[in-house]
C-alpha cells in the first residue's frame, strides 16, 4: 500500500515540477502507457506476445471520437462512451483470443502473427472507409471533454487513466489469476492438468489488455481532436512492444515507465539528434539480448512489486470439494491410439479397481505413459471407450478430465519453476475448488487444507513458501509435484514413476506417503513403475502392458509366475 500511495503522490506532484509543455507531453504518453500495461500483462505474465494492440487503441479512439462528434450537445452521453468504447475493444480482444487460442498450435508465434495481420487489416479498413473514419486524413473536429481545456488538465486525465490501469494490473497480478497466468507461461501443460482452462485464461488476459489499450484510445480522441489511421496501425503496435521490452515486461510499472520515458525522449530528441533512431535500434537490441528485464528490472527487485503483502497474513481454510465425491472406477475398453503408422495402444481394455493401489508395469514402449496420456485427455483415442465411473471421458480436454477428479504426476518432475513453493501448492488447492470469479480474490492465496498441513509436517521444505520451485533438488521437486497432486484430493491418482531419481530414504518416504494418501483419500492410485521391489511393496493388483495391450493382471505373485510375462521380460519373444 505504501508503494501505491507513493506512486500516486509522485504522479500528482509531477506537473508542479515540470513545465506546462512537459506535463502535456506526459499526458499524451500516459495514454500510450496505459496501453503498454496491457502488453506487459500478456507478454510478461501470460507469456504470449500481442503484436497488434494498436487495433484496440485505435478502435476505441474512433468509436469515442464518433460519439463525441455525434453527441457534441450532450456531453454526458459522450463521456459515457469512453468506458463503453474501451469495453468494446476489450470484448473484441476476448473474442479474438477465445477463437484463436482454442486451436491447438505449435507456438504462440502464430497468435502473434494473427494479431499483426488483424492490425494491418484494421489499418486498411480505417484508411479505406472514408465515410466513417475520414480515411487517410482521419476523423476530424472531435470536441474535447467539456471543462478540460488546460494543458495540465490533459495530464491529470491521462494520469488518472494510467493510475487506474496500474491499480487494476496490480490487483490482478496479486490475485490468483495472476499466479495462474505466470504458471501458464512456465508450464501450460501442467496447468491444464490441474483443471484450468488455459485457453480461457489466455483469452481473459488478452481481453483485459484490449480493454486497457481501449481505455487509452477512448481518451485519446477528445484529447487530440483528431484520430488518424496511425492510431490503429502497426507503428503504434510496434512502439508499444518496444516500450514494454525496454521498460521491463515482467513487472507492473516497467511498460508504463518505458512508454513515458522512451516515448517522450523520442519525441523530444527526434528533431535534434539525427541518429536518434539508429541509437534506439541498437539500444533495443541490447536490451533484448542482455537485459530481458528491461530498465525497471535493473532498478527494482521483480518480486517486491508483484507481491503486495504486508505482514504474513492469517491462513484461510479452503472449502472442501463440495459434497464428498464418491470413488469411481476407471475402465478402458478397446482403446486404440495411432500415430501415423505406429500403433501406440492396441484395443487396450483395462478395469482398474475403485480403491487401492495398482501398479502398471511393462517393457519400454509398452504404452504405459500413453495410457495415462489418453486417460487424462492429452492423446486422442482412435477408438474405444474410457469410463470414469458413469462418465465417458474419451475426447474430453485435459482440464475437463482433471475436474472429474483425476490427478496426475508426470514422469519428469513438472512443477512451475519460477513460482514459489507456496504458489505451486496454492494452484493445486484452487484446482477444482475455486469458482471462476474467486480467482480474482487475492485472499485465495492464503488457502490451506488439512491434507496440505499433513504434507507440510511430513516434508517441512514444503512450508518454506517463498522459495522458488526451481531451487529445489530433483528429489524435492518430485515430492512437490506429488504433494500438489495429493492436495487436489483426487478420486484417481495417476503416478508416473514417482520414485525415479530418488535416494533410498526419499523412496521410502514416498512409499509411506502413497500408502497413507491412498487410505486417506479412499480412491484408486495407479502407479507406473519399473522397480519390482516397489511394486511388491505397494501393489494390490499389478497390470502388465505389452505392445499397447493388456498382457496380464493379478497379484504380484501371480504375475511373477506367469509364463507370458516372463517371456516378455526375459526377452524370449517380442
Amino acid at each position, binding site marked *: 500500500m505504501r508503494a501505491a500511495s507513493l506512486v500516486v503522490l509522485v504522479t500528482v506532484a509531477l506537473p508542479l515540477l515540470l513545465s506546462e509543455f512537459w506535463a502535456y507531453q506526459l499526458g499524451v504518453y500516459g495514454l500510450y502507457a496505459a496501453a503498454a500495461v496491457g502488453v506487459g500483462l500478456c507478454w510478461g505474465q501470460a507469456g504470449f506476445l500481442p503484436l497488434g494492440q494498436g487495433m484496440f487503441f485505435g478502435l476505441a479512439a474512433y468509436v469515442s471520437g464518433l460519439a463525441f462528434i455525434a453527441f457534441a450537445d450532450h456531453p454526458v452521453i459522450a463521456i459515457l462512451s469512453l468506458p463503453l468504447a474501451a469495453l468494446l475493444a476489450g470484448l473484441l480482444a476476448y473474442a479474438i483470443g477465445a477463437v484463436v487460442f482454442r486451436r491447438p498450435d*505449435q507456438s504462440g*508465434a502464430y497468435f*502473434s*502473427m494473427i494479431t499483426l495481420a488483424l492490425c494491418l487489416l484494421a489499418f*486498411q479498413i480505417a484508411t479505406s472507409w472514408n465515410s466513417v473514419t475520414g480515411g487517410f486524413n482521419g476523423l476530424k473536429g472531435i470536441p474535447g471533454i467539456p471543462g478540460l481545456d488546460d494543458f495540465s488538465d490533459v495530464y491529470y486525465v491521462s494520469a488518472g487513466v494510467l493510475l487506474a490501469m496500474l491499480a487494476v494490473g496490480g490487483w490482478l497480478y496479486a490475485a490468483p489469476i495472476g499466479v495462474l497466468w505466470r504458471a501458464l507461461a512456465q508450464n501450460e501443460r501442467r496447468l491444464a492438468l490441474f483443471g484450468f482452462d488455459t485457453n480461457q485464461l489466455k483469452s481473459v488476459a488478452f481481453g483485459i489488455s484490449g480493454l486497457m489499450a481501449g481505455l487509452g484510445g477512448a481518451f485519446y480522441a477528445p484529447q487530440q481532436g483528431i484520430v488518424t489511421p496511425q492510431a490503429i496501425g502497426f507503428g503504434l503496435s510496434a512502439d508499444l*512492444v518496444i516500450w514494454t521490452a525496454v521498460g521491463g515486461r515482467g513487472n507492473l510499472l516497467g511498460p508504463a515507465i518505458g512508454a513515458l520515458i522512451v516515448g517522450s525522449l523520442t519525441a523530444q530528441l527526434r528533431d535534434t539528434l539525427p541518429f536518434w533512431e539508429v541509437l534506439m*535500434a541498437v539500444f533495443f537490441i541490447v536490451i*533484448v*539480448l542482455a537485459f*530481458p528485464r528491461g530498465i525497471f528490472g535493473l532498478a527494482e527487485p521483480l518480486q517486491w512489486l508483484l507481491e503486495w503483502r504486508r505482514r504474513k497474513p492469517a491462513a484461510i481454510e479452503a472449502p472442501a470439494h463440495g459434497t464428498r465425491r464418491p470413488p469411481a472406477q476407471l475402465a478402458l475398453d478397446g482403446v486404440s491410439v495411432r500415430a501415423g503408422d505406429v500403433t501406440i495402444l492396441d484395443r487396450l481394455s483395462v478395469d482398474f479397481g475403485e480403491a487401492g493401489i495398482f501398479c502398471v508395469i511393462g517393457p519400454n514402449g509398452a504404452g504405459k505413459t500413453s495410457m495415462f496420456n489418453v486417460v487424462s485427455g492429452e492423446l486422442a483415442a482412435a477408438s474405444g471407450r474410457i469410463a470414469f465411473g458413469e462418465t465417458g471421458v474419451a475426447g474430453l480436454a485435459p482440464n475437463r478430465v482433471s475436474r472429474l477428479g483425476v490427478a496426475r504426476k508426470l514422469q519428469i518432475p513438472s512443477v512451475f519453476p519460477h513460482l514459489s513453493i507456496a504458489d505451486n501448492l496454492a494452484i493445486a488447492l484452487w484446482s477444482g475448488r475455486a469458482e471462476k470469479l474467486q480467482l480474482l480474490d487475492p485472499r485465495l492465496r492464503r488457502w490451506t487444507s488439512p491434507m496440505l498441513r499433513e504434507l507440510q509436517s511430513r516434508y517441512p521444505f514444503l512450508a518454506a513458501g517463498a522459495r522458488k520451485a526451481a531451487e529445489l533438488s530433483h528429489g524435492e521437486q518430485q515430492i512437490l509435484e506429488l504433494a500438489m497432486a495429493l492436495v487436489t484430493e483426487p478420486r484417481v491418482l495417476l503416478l508416473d514413476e514417482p520414485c525415479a531419481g530418488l535416494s533410498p530414504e526419499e523412496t521410502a518416504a514416498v512409499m509411506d506417503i502413497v500408502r497413507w494418501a491412498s487410505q486417506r483419500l479412499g480412491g484408486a492410485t495407479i502407479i507406473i513403475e519399473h522397480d519390482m521391489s516397489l511394486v511388491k511393496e505397494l501393489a494390490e493388483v499389478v497390470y502388465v502392458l505389452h505392445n499397447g495391450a493388456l498382457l496380464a493382471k493379478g497379484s504380484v505373485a501371480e504375475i511373477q509366475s506367469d509364463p507370458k510375462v516372463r517371456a516378455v521380460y526375459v526377452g524370449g519373444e517380442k
Partner: protein
Amino acid sequence: MDPLIVTQAINVLYAVSTLAVLALGLAVIFGLLGVLNIAHGEFIMIGAYCAYITQANGWPYLAALPLTLVLCGMLGVAVEWVMIRPLYRRPFDTLVATWGLSLLLRKIAEAIFGLGFRSVNIPLPGTVEFLGIEYPLYRLFLIVLSFATVAGLVIWYGNSRTGNQIRAMVSNPELAQAQGISIRRLASGTFVTGTCLAGLGGVMVAPLVPVQPFMGLDYVLRTFFVLIVGGLGSVQGLLSGAAVIGGFDSVVSAATNATDGYFAVLVLSILFLWLKPRGIVARG
C-alpha cells in the same frame, strides 16, 4: 485466346514465382531452424542495393551476385552468432531482436544511400511476343530463374550429404550431434544460406521495384504469410503457399482492383493462421 486473359495468367505466374523465390530464404530459416527472422526483408533490400552499387560502378549485372553473397553471408554469420544462437529457445525474444535488427539495417541503409529511390536498369530490356501478346522479357526470365532456383535447392537438399545432415539435425538434434554432426556449424550455415537466398532474391527483383531503405517491410509479411499458408518444411508447402497468396492477390487484383486484392490476402492469411496453422502441406 483473349490477350487480356493470357497476359493476366502470366502475371499470376510471375507473382507466384517471385513470391516463391523471395520466400525461399525465410522458408529455410523458419522452416528448418524455427527462427522468426523479421529482418528477412532487409536482406532482400541489401541484395537490391548491391545490384544498384554494381550498376553505379559500371560493372556487369552478374557481378551483383558475388557482392550480395559476401555481404549477406558475413552479416548472416554475425547475426546468427550474436543474436540467434543465444535465443534459440526464446521465440518471442528472437522475433523482437530481429526486429530491432531490421530497424538498424534500415537506418544504416538510409544513412549510406539516403531516402530517395534508386533505380536499377533492367538487364534484359524489351518485350517478347508470343501467344498473341507482348510480355516483358526480364519478367519471363525471372519466372524461369525462380523455378529453377527453387528446384535446384530442393534437389541439392534431397541428395547432398549436407542436406541429409540438416534433415537429421531438424528431426533429432541430440541424435545428430551424437553421430558427430556439428549442430552449431550446421545451424549457422543454414541461417547464412537463408540470408544469402534473400539477398539473391533482392538482386533479382531490384530492376522491377523502387529500391529504397523501407522496401524490406513489404516483403516480410508477404513471405511469412506464404509460409503460414503453405506449410513449413517442404517445397510443396512453399509453392502452394506462394500459389495461394500470390495467385489470390493477382487474380483478385486483375478481376476487381488492388485494394480488394490486398484485403483478400490479409483475410486469407488470417483464416489460415487461425484454422490451418500448419498450412496446406502440413509435415507430420
